[in-house]
């Protein structure tokens, strides 16, 4: 067994272990014997039963797939755009979701259970469609990221404009929603995210050689028979669907897509197949533990997940910049 497969195997074991241990953390007081009884047979205590099966397990499972999804989306974008700083959020996905959430919060306040994720998803998708459209009009797919930044600011300004003239408390709700949280998730959310994730992973694995060709440059890839623009568009579509689904249920969880692939490149390698599998595993471990911190570090409150990931992410970002400086 070579080094890469050993690392991947160890990471897989760590994912399973993390998920199991994470179930034991939470503000509700449930001892380990009770927890074990609930997991393997029927629960004696109905409260523990609801907490474990309807709150903690859905949270841990959604953290697992959302971490995988965000990390994979980042890895795909970085490899297809050959830009180490590409992140699904740079395409205005969060700003789009924020706009959707704002409109839902102001117009459909009584029906938010369905309206909020749907509006956020549509908003996120809308932002990606505009970004791609602009890049197409400019005839430069490599400028996707710049178009994304512009669209992101545009959508954020529309959101702020609506909030300023809307109901004052909607501002709080939208801002806190955008900070990201896994507190509200349920099992059905896990199934939706997991199915989009499976489609994404299968597609990327099927096309991993073509994506690798892109790493050599657009002209080299084209000479190897790869339809560069089409492939890039397909990958962008997959990333958008994946990120939009996650954002719709969990709000904004920034920087996972940026930092996880960088860690994995150091650890395992740069080619697509290794990078995707590695990113999925590390992303899952990362988000499971971030959510444990979010729900159990303060005695009387939760910390929004996005705050923790952004704090870690920004430090990591600076670290990458420092390293690039040292090399050149």
């Amino acid at each position: 067994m070579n080094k890469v497969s050993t690392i991947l195997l160890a990471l897989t074991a760590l994912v399973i272990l993390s998920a199991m241990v994470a179930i034991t953390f939470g503000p509700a007081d449930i001892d380990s014997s009770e927890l074990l009884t609930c997991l393997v047979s029927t629960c004696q205590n109905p409260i523990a039963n609801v907490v474990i099966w309807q709150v903690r397990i859905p949270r841990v499972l959604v953290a697992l797939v959302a971490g995988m999804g965000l990390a994979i989306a980042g890895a795909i974008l970085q490899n297809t755009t050959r830009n180490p700083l590409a992140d699904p959020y740079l395409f205005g996905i969060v700003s789009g979701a924020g706009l959707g959430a704002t409109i839902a919060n102001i117009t459909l306040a009584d029906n938010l259970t369905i309206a909020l994720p749907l509006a956020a998803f549509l908003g996120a998708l809308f932002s990606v469609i505009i970004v791609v459209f602009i890049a197409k009009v400019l005839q430069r797919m490599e400028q996707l990221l710049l178009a994304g930044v512009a669209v992101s600011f545009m959508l954020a300004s529309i959101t702020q404009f609506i909030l300023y003239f809307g109901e004052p408390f909607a501002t709080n709700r939208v801002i806190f929603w955008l900070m990201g949280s896994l507190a509200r998730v349920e099992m059905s959310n896990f199934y939706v995210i997991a199915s989009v994730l499976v489609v994404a992973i299968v597609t990327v694995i099927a096309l991993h050689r073509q994506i690798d060709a892109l790493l050599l440059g657009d002209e080299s890839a084209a000479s190897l028979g790869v339809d560069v623009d089409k492939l890039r568009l397909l990958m962008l579509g997959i990333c958008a669907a994946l990120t939009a689904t996650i954002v719709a249920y969990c709000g904004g969880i920034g920087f996972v897509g940026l930092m996880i692939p960088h860690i994995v490149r150091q650890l395992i390698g740069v080619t697509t197949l290794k990078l995707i599998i590695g990113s999925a595993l590390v992303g899952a471990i990362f988000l499971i533990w971030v959510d444990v911190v979010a729900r159990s570090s303060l005695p009387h409150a939760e910390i929004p997940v996005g705050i923790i990931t952004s704090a870690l992410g920004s430090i990591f970002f600076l670290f990458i910049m420092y390293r690039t400086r040292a090399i050149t």
Partner: protein
Amino acid sequence: MKLPYLVYFLLLISSSAYAELVKERSKPTIIALAPHIVEMLYDVGAGEQIIGTTAFADFPEQAKKIPRIGNYVRLQLERVIELQPDLIIAWKSGNPSDDLARLEQLGFNIVYSQPNTFEDIAKEVRYFAKLTGHTQQGEQVARKFENELAQIKKTYQNKSKITGFYELWSRPLTTVAKGSWPQQFLNVCQVNNPFKPVITPYPQISIEQVLPADVQLIIQPLSENQKEREGFNWQDWTIIPAVANKQIIQPDADAMHRMSIRSLTALKDLCKAIDKTRTHLLAKKTVAKT
């Protein structure tokens, strides 16, 4: 012959005592998700039934001892499930809506509080009193509130209007307009707010817009909880009549901005302070005439 009677009598007593006990027990346990809801519950005598609340529920003093289960950003769902309340009273616009939706989905009984006017306070006091088994006390409190409110309105309804500026926040300079909570204080106290017609309830404005409004009084509510809060420096703008005449009042922001029975005391104090300015201005006018 006497024994059956005695047994019957004892049974009667014990059953009525039991009924009393059941009645006591049947009063629902409550999680109250905002400071103003906690205050209302204490006012109707249901304070002891509160088993969980959010941050900043600090009035009355006993409320500080209630276990906290989150803040306005997030609720701790696990703790709510653990506490098993019979009733959750949430603040429709102030609590995270996704958390509330999840709690409803988990089968919790949630009712909402959304007081937008003084009249709503009385309405909600009655409603929560009924839900928590204190109908009578609720009715008393609500009626007293309504009577006092009517009294204050009557006292000031024929007073002359004065133009006032309400400084909600200084950086950026923010005021209130129609649809905001403080606007009704201004209506009752007969203050003419030049920014009332603005379409957003809490508009940000610039000093340039305040200057031509001929403001006779500046209301600058300050909160004890926000020590770092600095009011706008009006002293640089002596061109404003209120500044020239030193008519700047600083009421207690906490009492004014919390939608509870206490807000009536704040209303009374504010109207009184404004009336002082009114008298001062009138006296000045008379002196100028003579």
